[in-house]
């Protein structure tokens, strides 16, 4: 089906199911329970999960297949965001033109950067891409302020021209929509103590993720994908086999740049704001980390990696000492304070520490990233099952 083999089809179906039922899966704890703090099923975070998933899936096409480590992909995400927000300011709040233009702009920009950077390989390539993205950031933050909004970024305003949209009603605010469907529209469902949110923006972003993921599988399994792996494996052999590695690598670079642009456009569509920080080198570094954390070159790894990092950033950082004290209130006072004092450095403002430790633990214990971990678990599980079968 969909021209996929059985295994890939299974992966795709898993991703589709995960995306469809994310509102349930991410809200496993009753709303009133102390553990509700760990619920991640609210629209903004769910949107970020899938958007950064798209970013990482695209990045993996370049890094995972060709082995070229770009340290500048955030620039394409940023360029996509700026393009999208300008569409919303000038043309319409409908997200379709914004997303299309963001992919196009990011594609053109990545073509330019890739064309220059791919003259070099290895670390020299990484530094070239880093340099381009840092230049984009520095300029966007300062001298390009009239175009980028600089420090304060860009948001749609009531008095923007918006040629295609009619004048806003008195008191209305411009909202991103898909032919009238508001991105922030949500449906709530309460089931007993649980509550689940179904957000239109999330499902639109999820649809893009599924599409992107499907495309990425197709690319992985295509002759083109094989060529990209050949680039990583042995460029010399490739050249003497009559193949030109450069257009292949450049194509991969541009495709992943367009994925980044799509992610940037979707970020704006879900949350109408674009700022220069998106292009800072740490943002490029983040997608590298997401991909490695999940598993370089695997299909689903980048999605898992981006989920893990965004979860840390948004959930762990919000636990404060007050919440800790409520959790451990059942303990005797002295013990409560000791436990809180032990955990406190790792949560809330210490979330970076937890993130750093996670990176180290994953890479030390699971060389292939989270996907490797999952595989080991399933192997262990299978082994256990086989054993019990034998015993029978």
């Amino acid at each position, binding site marked *: 089906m969909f021209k996929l083999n059985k295994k890939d089809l299974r992966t795709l179906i898993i991703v589709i199911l995960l995306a469809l039922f994310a509102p349930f899966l991410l809200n496993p704890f009753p709303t009133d329970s102390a553990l509700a703090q760990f619920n991640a099923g609210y629209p903004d975070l769910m949107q970020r999960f899938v958007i950064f998933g798209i970013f990482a899936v695209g990045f993996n096409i370049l*890094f995972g297949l060709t*082995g070229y*480590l770009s340290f500048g992909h955030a620039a394409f995400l940023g360029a996509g965001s700026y393009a999208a927000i300008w569409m919303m300011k000038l043309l319409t709040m409908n997200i379709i033109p914004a997303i299309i233009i963001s992919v196009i702009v990011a594609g053109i920009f990545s073509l330019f950067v890739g064309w*220059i950077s791919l*003259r*070099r*390989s*290895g*670390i*020299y390539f990484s*530094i*070239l891409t*880093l*340099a*381009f993205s*840092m*230049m984009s950031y*520095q*300029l966007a*933050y*300062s*001298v*390009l302020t009239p175009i980028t909004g600089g420090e304060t970024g860009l948001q749609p305003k009531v008095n923007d021209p918006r040629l295609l949209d009619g004048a806003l009603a008195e008191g209305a605010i411009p909202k991103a929509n898909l032919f009238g469907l508001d991105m922030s529209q949500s449906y709530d469902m309460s089931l007993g103590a649980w509550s689940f949110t179904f957000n239109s923006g999330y499902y639109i972003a999820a649809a893009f993720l599924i599409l992107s993921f499907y495309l990425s599988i197709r690319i992985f399994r295509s002759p083109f994908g094989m060529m990209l792996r050949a680039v990583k494996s042995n460029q010399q052999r490739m050249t003497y086999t009559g193949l030109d590695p450069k257009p292949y690598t450049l194509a991969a670079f541009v495709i992943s740049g367009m994925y980044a642009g799509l992610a940037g456009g979707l970020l704006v569509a879900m949350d109408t704001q674009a700022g220069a920080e998106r292009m800072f*080198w*740490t943002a490029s*570094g983040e997608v*590298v*980390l997401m*991909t*490695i*954390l999940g598993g*370089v070159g695997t299909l689903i790894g980048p999605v898992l990696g981006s989920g893990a990092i965004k979860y840390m950033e948004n959930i762990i950082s919000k636990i404060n000492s007050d919440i800790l004290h409520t959790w451990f209130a059942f303990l005797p006072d002295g013990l409560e304070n000791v436990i809180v004092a032990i955990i406190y*450095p790792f949560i809330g403002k*210490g979330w*970076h*520490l937890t*993130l*750093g*430790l*996670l*990176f*180290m633990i*994953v*890479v*030390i214990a699971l*060389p292939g990233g989270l996907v490797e971990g999952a595989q080991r678990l399933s192997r262990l599980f299978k082994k256990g099952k086989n054993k019990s079968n034998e015993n029978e």
Partner: protein
Amino acid sequence: MDSIILQILNGLDKGSAYALIALGLTLIFGTLGVVNFAHGALFMIGAFCAVTLNRILTLSHQVIDNTRTDFLGNPLKVDIPYIYDFFGENIGRAIIDWSVPLSILFAIPIMIAIGVIMERGLIRHFYHRPHADQILVTFGLAIVLQEVIKFYYGANPIPSPAPEAFKGSFDFGALVGFDPNTIIYPYWRLVYFCFSLIVIGAIFAFLQFTTFGMVVRAGMADRETVGLLGIDIDRRFTIMFGIAAAVTGLAGVMYVPINPPNYHMGMDFLVLSFVVVVVGGMGSLSGAVLAGFMLGILESFASMREVIDLLPGINQIIIYLVAIIILLTRPRGLMGRRGVMED
């Protein structure tokens, strides 16, 4: 003319920091081939060695001064460092005043120890792992180190002045015949510049003229062959890592009077140090030093008013622009060896 000399001086000074950091990085990254994202953190830890020594020297007991009040209107508690009790106030004050230079002695063993522990405990297991894994683990380590420092010292910069004797500046221009006040140069920056030259010279001499250095250089070129000769190259690489950490740490120690240290200063220098090493050329110590000074000087020129007026924003991007131009015209940086980290 005078403004050009002025910016060259500034550039040399900026460049000496870049060169020192890049020298440490190139020992680890350019030659051992480990992508060490924790390198900035080593610089930061060096700086906090100075802060820590200052904290130790100023450990105090409190005396209540009834003549003055604190912000709540209670009698003011005045901190008296224990060191005053031991050595008397004058000597005690002098010791505290000189705490930054004293930190060099304090920092060397600590930084070597940190380097050795890092190599033995972590990096060693990653020599043969993909660069991606090295990035993830060292980035994780950098975050952890940074957060530990933040936990104990807070996020704000901590003022760590130079000794009284080196405060202020001298009129370099007047010395060489320009108008007064055209070329001024702070004493401490001169100290930093000389210090960096000494350290760089010492490292070069060490690698060039000692047997240890020869073996290490041979090991960098061809690890297996040296191993076959029955030489324990691993142990030497461990020591090399310790030395790299010490060089970087010392760059941090001496930097604190120039700019007050904070916990994220390592990240500020991380990208820059990679750029310097790569522009200098992978695997080349002299390339790293040369690129450090060159980028420092170019950065200074780009920050001149006349230049900014001509090319707005040039001061924002000069380093990256130069990096791009050099890498496009010289495929392996200024003095890079073939084949290092090109796959």
